[in-house]
Every structure is written in structure tokens, then in C-alpha cells.
């Protein structure tokens, strides 16, 4: 950000309301996404990030409407392309805090092709997937995180597909921060978002965000009844094997910070690359022409 003078100003203390846009969410009453939104406001306020230095990138889905409700820069883009677009923003302007928010379909069905790449590159961003195990916006079709047997509009006779496990996947493909949180527990969620944003590298949060309309109240109840916090289990998030174990725990759905690894993010690696590129003297752009005169 050479054009704007971001850093020079004295910081004011921002409040939750400073991050609220004037737009009213279109979500159904009882939707888990409200919880995620509330937590995000909290986290931004806690980190005291100036709104104009934050960009939230989303795809398409109920969940992907989120950027419209936050008074930062936002980009409600197309279905499945959160990660490339976010990578573009971050690599173009490393000073900006980049957050991706979207659904399970957006991220793990149509967007799957980008997941391992953003993760292994360790793009410095926070990626929050509001996982409701259904396609909300299109009104109730099978999602990649839905379970075998689930009857939806496109699985009239029950799903026959083993679900994607977001947390396992992310740990395996190289995300350097992996957490899971219950949208119904705003404190935990906000804490994790804070940590994720502070983390230098690709931070993923699997936000268990029930869909009241197409999964009924049962989904929410199930989540509340079956989640436990890894903090209570003395979990060491720097141990990958343990992270995978607790991710798949038979005792229930683990929440909290499951895995974290310190590793230089993509933009820093790219800075080093530029240093290597400029070790030899760099000609004026106009003089590159000389190379083509034999």
C-alpha cells in the first residue's frame, strides 16, 4: 500500500458497531450464520483493525452474503473462487487483512480445487467456512459435508457419498492453522477468529453453522449436544498426529484450535524471491529493449 498512508495515523479504539454495515441480513431466523457474523464483529473490534484495511471475500451461498453486513471492503464474488481472489488481494496488498467467508458447497465442492493450493502456499488469510452440511441458498441440495443416508432435494433416496471432512483435509493439505467452532458459541468463535487473523499464514475455521430451514432445529441441537472443547482435553495443537486424532475423535466433535504450525507465509516468501531477483543490477524498464538488439 504505497499510495495510502495506512500506518501513520494514531489508532482509535473501534467498537463492534463500527463494523456493522447498514444492510440487514437476509438470513432466516435461527440461521447459524448470525452467530458467525456477530463473532466476526467482535473479533475485528478486539483486534482494532481499521475497516478500510480489511477485505472480506466471499463466494455464493447464504453464508457468502456475509461481507455485505460488514463495513469493511467486501467482495461477494462468484461460487467457489474465494481462495484465488483472496490470494490475489493478499499478494497485491500484503498490508491488508484478508478474510474469506463462504459455505461448505462453495468451499469443498466447487471450490475444492483451490483448497490444497492456498493451504500449501500458506497464503496469509483467514478462511471461515460456515458448514451447514447443505446447500442453503439454492434451497436444500446435497452438500459435500452431508452424511451418508441424508435425504435432500438431490438425494431423494439418501446420499451414497462419504462426506468430505474439512478439518482433516485442511490439516493434511498444509493449512498452518486449523480450528473448529460452534456458531452457537460466539465467544469461542470470536476468540478463534482473533487468533486466526493474528496467525501469519493460511488459517482455516470450520464454523459449525446450522441451517434452520433445511436442516431443522435438530441440527443445532445435535451440534450443541455433541461438541466438546479441545482446551478441556489438554490438546497440543502443534502435534499434527494428535490434531488428526482429536479431529476424528469418537467422543464427539472437537472444537477449538486443533492444529497450528509456524511457517513463513506466501507473501514473505515472495519478498525473499524479489530479493533474489534483484541481486544483480536491475535496468531501467526502457533499457530492457537493449537485450533485443543483436
Amino acid at each position, binding site marked *: 500500500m504505497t499510495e495510502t498512508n495506512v500506518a501513520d495515523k494514531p489508532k482509535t479504539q473501534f467498537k463492534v458497531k463500527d463494523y456493522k454495515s447498514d444492510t440487514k441480513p437476509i438470513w432466516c431466523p435461527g440461521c447459524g450464520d448470525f452467530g458467525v457474523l456477530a463473532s466476526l464483529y467482535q473479533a475485528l473490534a478486539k483486534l482494532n483493525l481499521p475497516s478500510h484495511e480489511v477485505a472480506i471475500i466471499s463466494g455464493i451461498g447464504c453464508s457468502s452474503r456475509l*461481507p*455485505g453486513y460488514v463495513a469493511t471492503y467486501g467482495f*461477494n464474488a462468484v461460487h467457489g473462487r474465494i481462495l484465488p481472489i483472496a490470494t490475489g488481494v493478499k499478494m497485491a496488498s500484503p498490508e491488508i487483512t484478508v478474510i474469506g467467508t463462504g459455505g461448505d458447497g462453495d468451499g469443498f465442492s466447487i471450490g475444492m*480445487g483451490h483448497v490444497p493450493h492456498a493451504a500449501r502456499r500458506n497464503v496469509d488469510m483467514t478462511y471461515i467456512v460456515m458448514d451447514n452440511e447443505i446447500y442453503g441458498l439454492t434451497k436444500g441440495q446435497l452438500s459435500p459435508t452431508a452424511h451418508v443416508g441424508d435425504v435432500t432435494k438431490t438425494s431423494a433416496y439418501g446420499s451414497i457419498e462419504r462426506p468430505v471432512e474439512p478439518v482433516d483435509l485442511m490439516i493434511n493439505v498444509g493449512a498452518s492453522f486449523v480450528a473448529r467452532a460452534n456458531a452457537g458459541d460466539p465467544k469461542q468463535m470470536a476468540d478463534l477468529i482473533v487468533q486466526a487473523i493474528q496467525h501469519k499464514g493460511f488459517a482455516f475455521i470450520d464454523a459449525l453453522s446450522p441451517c434452520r430451514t433445511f436442516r431443522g432445529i435438530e441440527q443445532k441441537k445435535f451440534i450443541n449436544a455433541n461438541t466438546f472443547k479441545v482446551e478441556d482435553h489438554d490438546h497440543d495443537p502443534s502435534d499434527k498426529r494428535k490434531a488428526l486424532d482429536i479431529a476424528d475423535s469418537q467422543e464427539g466433535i472437537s472444537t477449538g484450535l486443533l492444529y497450528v504450525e509456524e511457517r513463513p507465509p506466501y507473501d514473505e516468501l515472495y519478498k525473499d524471491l524479489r530479493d533474489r531477483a534483484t541481486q544483480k543490477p536491475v535496468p531501467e524498464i526502457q533499457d530492457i529493449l537493449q537485450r533485443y538488439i543483436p
Partner: protein
Amino acid sequence: MERNDIVIGMAGSGGDGVVSAGEILVSAGASEGVHAFMLKSFGPQIRGGESSCRVRLSGKQIQSHGDQVQVLGIFSWNDFKQFRGEMHLNDPVVIVMDSADKTSKDDIPIDEDIDRIIYEVPIAQLAKDKAGTLQAKNMVMLGVLSELFGLPDEGLRDAIRKKFKKKDQEVIDSNLKAMEAGATYVRDEIDKTDEVKFSFTPAEPKVLMEGNEAFAYGALYAGCRFSAGYPITPSSEIMEWMGRELPKYDGTMLQSEDELAAIGMVIGAAFAGKKAMTATSGAGISLMSEQIGLASMAELPLVIMNVQRTGPSTGIPTKTEQADLQQALYGTHGDANRVVIAPADVEDCFDVAVQAFYISEKYQIPVIVLSDQYLGQRKETFDQDALFQSDNGFMKTIKREVPTGEDLEDYKRFKFTESGVSPMAYPGIEKGMYQAAGLEHGEHGLPTSDVDMHAKMTEKRFRKNKVIAEELNFVRFYGPEDAEVGVIGWGSSKGAIKEAIQRLNDDGYPVSAAVPQILMPFPQEKLEKYLEPLNTVYVAEMSYSGQFYKYLKGFLRFGDRELKKYARSGAAPFDVSEIYNTVKQEFE
């Protein structure tokens, strides 16, 4: 017969170094101030298969690979076969061949009707004897050609030295020796019976570049500092160039996982305020089409280079065609406005890059540049001072308009304005926060499904076209103003068209041509004025279905004049004589 324009073809297998020889030849020409042009072509083999090149050297400005090949350098007739369809031979043709090839005279795979003068030279033998390695065969060939036809031999020696400058002196010497052996053989053993003799006046060295290099360089010059791409023939050289150069100038080149990600990253960077681009071809441009629509809807400035290849689908990746025009104009769902612009020669690739960034930044619109394999991968010379002054005098670089104090009080990213352009903020600008979206939206950027707002926003997005067309409407015109017959073409066909018109005019035919540089918005007025005196108009293009022809008919008023289509599938670029003969028929 002395001539200052010569076309030399060579064919052999990978090991024969045919393409290196061609490169040395054009480089030699350029260094002595000769106009040079080179095409290369490969067989399907990944490495070591057949390859060929065509080199044209000329004392006067040239516009294409020329026409029939006058001189053919053959290492193996068997390898030549692969290229028969694309190498049209002059009658008579002068052939220099390795006497090691034992193909009987009757079996030589060239058209029976063509007269031939053949010089057999023990090329392999000489290479082994004089340079100690078969690898020097191509140098022997260069020596033979140079001596026989009067090519710039000082330049050749220079070029050889440069080519091997990173190797030992020994290597350089043995290559020079091989070249010398070829020349000596000619002097000692050959009785020249043909009449081909190249003559030239040495001049200031020229620039020698490929279209892909020129475009990448132009983008850098225009201020592009972000590029993402996924390798694809014949555009990969652009991302490779960017990957080497951008990091030196504080820029970024990312190799993405696919083209969906490439255009996505570029969209992200453009949203973040950078001048950003991607280059692709064939399948890649089709994969990008969804997000080109997003850029159009979100009014994001970005540049997309499509180095067209032969299609559809994977087609023939290493060959040329002009059949992605409709895809560029219309290849996404919905009424998605964009700009399409096509360079006409290597130097123009630089100019067009600069203009593409200018337009995209100023008008906040995706700009698609349509080059092709013929343009992107050929080597062509131009004068040293030509690059930074474009043909149409347009070499401005700007950065997009950002909202100012007042705009920011209640910032409307998509504010209705007369030109359709609204000042654009980006992350980091205080009070400029807005939501970009692929959804239809109101002035603030918030989603709407209102029928009237959709009508107004659609109109806003298209309103830009009028302003763009006023500012950028460059058309290249050739031939007399009172011509009776006209030719309209676009992009890389310019060279063959221009030369054909010159030849027709020289032969007394009242013919002219128009080659618009910007295709959308189309320079309608200029073209309609151009049509006025004409009785007959040919639309010439390398597209079987006549994409350009159909496009022009969509809005140009041709009136009563006869409209003819010279549309053929690609893979081989237009020869000058193809256009010449077609148009000449009008007068028979």
C-alpha cells in the same frame, strides 16, 4: 537476379538444429540492419522430432513471413514431409541438401510441377570433419547458404559468437569453422546455376523480438505489476517473461493451479488496486469466461491476453487461427460488456499492451487482447526507435480514478455518471469501503433484484462504449482512397493483407484495405467511411465459420456493395499470394 527479399525454409529433425540455424540467421540479419522475420514449426514429437523454420530477410520493411519459399535447406526429406502443407514453394525452388540423404530425385516430396535446382553438399561429413561433431551440421548449412546467396556473413559470425557466448571459446571456434567449411565447399565445389542472390545495405541494428515478449514488455511498461497465469502453448512465454521480470520491479507473477484461479487472482489484485493481467490460450480462455463476466459486472480493470491457437478444444496447440473472436466478444453468459483489441504485428503487441492497460484502468472494464500463435511466437524486426512511439501515437499510461474527498462522504462505487465510469476505491483507502459483487447491485454496490435498477445498471455498463470509441478507434488503412475493391481483416492477418495490397497496387489494381485495431467497441464511423467508394468488400480471416464476417454484418451498413467472405480454417497463416490471388479475381 539480385533481390533484396529472400525466403529460406529449412527442415530436419531435432538434432539437426534447424531452428537454431534460423534464429542465428534472423539475428544476423537484425544486427546488420536487415528486416528479418522467422517462423518455426514442430512435429508432434516432444523433443527430437521433425522441425522446420522459415526465415525471411529483406532490405525493405516486411509485414509477413512472405510467400513462397525460394531457398530450401534440407537435412532430411523425410522430416520435410511433415511441413509440406504449410511450406509453399516458389517455382523454381533452389535446394541445398545434405548429400547424406539418399532419397532418389524422383521421390523428393515436392510438387512435380515445381522446377528445382539442387545443390548436394556433404553437410554431415563436413561437420564431422571440420568441427568434430554432427551437432555443427546447421552451421555448415548456414555457411553454404550464406556463400551461395550472399547472406550477411559478418552478422552470422557475430550471431554465432553471441549464441555460444556462455560456452568455451572452443565451441565457438568449432562452430565458426563449420560455417567456414560450408562456405569453402561452395566456393570450391559448387557451380552456382540459380539466380537467387540477396543484396542488402548494412544499417543500424534492428530490434528482434517475438510477439509474446513484446506484449509482456509492453505490460510492464504500462505499469502492470501483477500477473497470474497457468502455462499453455502458445502463450506461456508471456508468463515466463513476467516471472523473470516482474519480481525485479516490485511486481508479482503467480503460477496458479488452473485458469479459474489465474483469472481469480487477477480479479483479486485488480480489486486491490493493482494493474493486473493474465495470458492464456484455447482451453484457458474458455475456462476464464465465467469470471470475465464477474469482472464486467463488478467493473474491474484487468487485461486478458489470448494468444489464439488452432481450435476448437485442444485443437492444434502449436498452430495459429483467428477463431476465438466470437469467444472474446461474447464468451460469457449475459450481456457482459468488455473491450476487445487485436495487435497486428510484433511491435504492435507492445503498443496494444499499453493501450489495453490504459483502457481497462480508465474505463474499469476487462480488456481482452487477441493475439495468435503466428504473432506471439514469430520473431520479427523493427527499428530501435519504433517501440516507444506507437503507430497511432498512443502511448499513454494512467492509473484508475479514485474517489476524492467529496465522493467519499457517501461513497457510491457504482455512481451513475455520464461516461458510465465511477471513481473506484480499493482496500486501504479510508472511507472507500464498498462491496463488489457479481450480483446485480445499486449505486452503493449492494445486491438488488429490482427490474429497473438492472435496466439502469446495464445501461451504465454499456454507456462506456461510446466514450471509448471516441477515444480509441485506430484503424490501419492501406491502398488508395478511391479504390474499388476493399479488404477488411484483423489482427495478425495484417501483414499478408498489407503486402498483398501493395503488390496489387503495384500491378495497377485499385484495391485498399482496412485493419481495425480495436474490435469492440468497433470503430464504426471510420469503417463506414472507408466503405463509401468500394464496390466489393472482402472480409479475410482465418476462421472457417467466418466469425469476423458475421460480426461486421451485425452492424456495418454494407448497402448494395458486394460482400465476400475469404474465410478459411487456420493452422497456417495467410500467404500474401492467397490474398493477392483472391482479390485479383475481381478484375478478371
